[in-house]
Structures are given as C-alpha cells and as structure tokens.
C-alpha cells in the first residue's frame, strides 16, 4: 500500500507538470488576472487544463503528506541520509511552489496572499534579506512567476529525482484518474476580481492556520516559527534515532493544534 501511494504521488506530479506546461502557454505575468480569466472562459478546453493543473497539484500535496505520515509510522528508516535530506528539500519546495501558484492566479485572494507573504518577510528579522527575491515594485507577480515556473520546479525535480530515482511510473492512468475524479467531485475556488469590495479573502488551505494566528494578533516571527517547526523536527528525526518517539508525538500534537487553528 505505501509503495502504491508513493508511485501514485509521482504520477500526480507528472500530471501536474504536464498540465502546467499547457497553462503556461496562455499565462502572462503582465496581465496575470486577465490571462487567467482568458484561459478559464475563452481558450478552448482552457478551464479543463486549469482545473487539471489545480487538482493534480492539490492531490500531489495531499498524497505527499500521506506518504510522509506512512513513512513516519515505520519503525526503521530505509532510505539514506542524502535521500532523506533531499526529500525534505522537495517537501519545502512543494509547499513553496503551491503557494506561488496560488499568488499567480492574481485574483484578490492571490494578491493578498502575496502581500501577506512579503509582509511576513519584512517583519521577520533576518528574513527580510530574502525580500528582493520575491518583491517586484513594477510587476507584483513577476518574481512569484519566476519561482513557480523556473526555479522551484528545477529544485523540486532535482530533489525528487534523488529521492525517488525515477519519474517513470506505471500508474500514470491512476494519477490522471485521481485528478479527474477530484475535478468531478470538488469545485475549484472561484476567482475574486482584484477590485471587488466587501469580501473576506483567505490564503491557501495549508496556510489557514498561520493566517488565523495572524488574525489573532500573534507576532509574525512566532507564526514563522510555527510554520517551520515541523521541518526542524523532520531534520532531527533522521539524525536523532532516540528522539523518534518523542518527535512523532510532538508532530501529532502540532498537526492537531494547527488543524484546530485552521478551522477556527
């Protein structure tokens, strides 16, 4: 079962990459929101490819998290230190690429998510060094776009290759099938026009907990620590075998607390 989940995850990644290539042909960073609307409503089959890209990516993230949970349940780690480290790099890059994709749709929620991310960087001592890597005063989505279509996919593919060895999977059809099923049974969130008044916007679902913490007035530095905490634990998990049980318990507690904050 864990073996199958790993390969379905790889298949979903393939579907996400290929549907993303199609979407990239229409997307223009200089007319971000307009090009997304054009893709959705005017380009033949554009909405299908956009939804396929959205749901395959979401399913890829969910399956990756399931894979992580299943691996943590095992008594022994069967992969090498290199593979473990690259898998963590891939996990970080995955969250990052999902977030930049959310910003790129350039509707009110996407742009607001981008503003919040930049603000988090500005308000965190030491992190503001990275601000120029994302902020562009002339075209807001430009650097998010570069990260999403170029830098992060390269990092992700490289890290995943070292972790999974190959992207060849016989479960292509299952990956595609899962994406299509998601398209049938779930609805993609509607875009909110950037000039829409009187609406409440939220970030991507995996940052909702952090967003609610910010809403409660928790300092951005604390929110940063909360978000990076599980990654720090996962690094320790490999190198400190005697702490593994403790780390598992802390990770479960963190997940429950984060889920509670996400749903408040």
């Amino acid at each position, binding site marked *: 079962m864990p073996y199958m989940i790993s390969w379905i995850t790889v298949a979903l990644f393939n579907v996400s990459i290929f549907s993303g290539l199609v979407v990239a042909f229409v997307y223009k960073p200089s007319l971000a929101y307009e090009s997304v609307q054009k893709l959705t409503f005017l380009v033949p089959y554009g909405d299908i490819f956009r939804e396929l890209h959205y749901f395959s990516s979401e399913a890829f993230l969910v399956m990756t998290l399931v894979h992580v949970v299943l691996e943590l349940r095992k008594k022994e780690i069967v992969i090498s230190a290199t593979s473990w480290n690259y898998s963590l790099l891939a996990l970080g890059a995955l969250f990052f690429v999902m977030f930049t994709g959310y910003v790129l749709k350039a509707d*009110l929620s996407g742009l607001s998510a981008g*503003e*919040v991310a930049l603000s988090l960087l500005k308000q965190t001592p030491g992190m503001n060094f990275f601000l120029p890597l994302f902020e562009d005063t002339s075209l807001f989505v430009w650097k998010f776009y570069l990260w999403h279509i170029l830098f992060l996919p390269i*990092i992700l*593919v*490289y890290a995943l290759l070292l972790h999974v060895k190959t992207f060849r999977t016989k479960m292509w059809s299952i990956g595609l099938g899962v994406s299509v099923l998601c398209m049938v049974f779930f609805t993609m969130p509607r875009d909110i026009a950037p000039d829409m008044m009187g609406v*409440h916007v939220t970030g991507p679902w995996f940052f909702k907990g952090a967003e609610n913490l910010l809403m409660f*007035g928790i300092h951005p530095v604390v929110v940063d620590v909360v978000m990076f905490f599980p990654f720090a634990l996962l690094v320790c998990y490999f190198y400190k075998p005697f702490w593994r049980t403790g780390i598992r318990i802390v990770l479960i507690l963190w997940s429950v607390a984060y889920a509670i904050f996400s749903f408040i």
Partner: protein
Amino acid sequence: MRDVDTNRRFFVKNSIKFLPYLAVGTFIYPLVSYVRYEEIQKVSIAIPLLEIKSNITKIGKVLVYKKEKEVVVYSAHCTHMGCILNIDASKERFVCPCHSSEFSYDGVRLKGPAKRNLDIISSHIKDKILYIG
C-alpha cells in the same frame, strides 16, 4: 566508424550530472536582482481633482480622502500584514479583507490585529490637480 557505447540509461545518468549546476544557476537571477534592488521607488502620480468624484476613492494602492478643504492620501496597505484595504461606505471605514482590521476615514485604527494607523502619503494640489508622492 567507431561504435559509440551509449544507451538511454547512460544518457539519462550523464544528463542528471548537470542538474546540480542548473540548480545553482537558478540562484543567480535572484542574486543579481538582489544586488540591483532598490527598495524605495519614488513615483509621482497626478490626478485631476474633477476625476475624484466621491469623497473616498481607491486608486491602485492608494486611498484618497476628500475632506471639505483638504485632500488626504493614505497607503491602501493594511498596517498589519499589507493587504489592500476595502472601502466600507456603509460604516464609513476602511476594512482589511484578510484579517478584518478596520480604520476610520481619518486613517485611525479602530479594531483588528493592526497596531498602527494608516500610513499617510505626501500629496499636494496645484492647478486643480492632485499630485501624490
């Protein structure tokens, strides 16, 4: 002609060897842009006063508040996490769509996680034209 001992596995293996260089290369652009980064870009906007029809107008990322005798221009970024504020005309307030901070038309923080009042942007009127920035 010499037989070249190559196959798909050999080709893929050797192609992968270049990936680390490519990964390092991806950081060159951000690094260059970091070095060339200018944090403050002073841009002046000119708007004819006649075009500002209501007493509160949102123009891009600024809010223009026309009082009886003066015009005040605020940054439309919420002072909490930088989201662009909405105008709630019924309550006569600026409302943050992200974390629900609220500000009066005078830019004073009323409620929500924001701690500061709105940032005022320098502006002046000359020949019935509003110059912002």
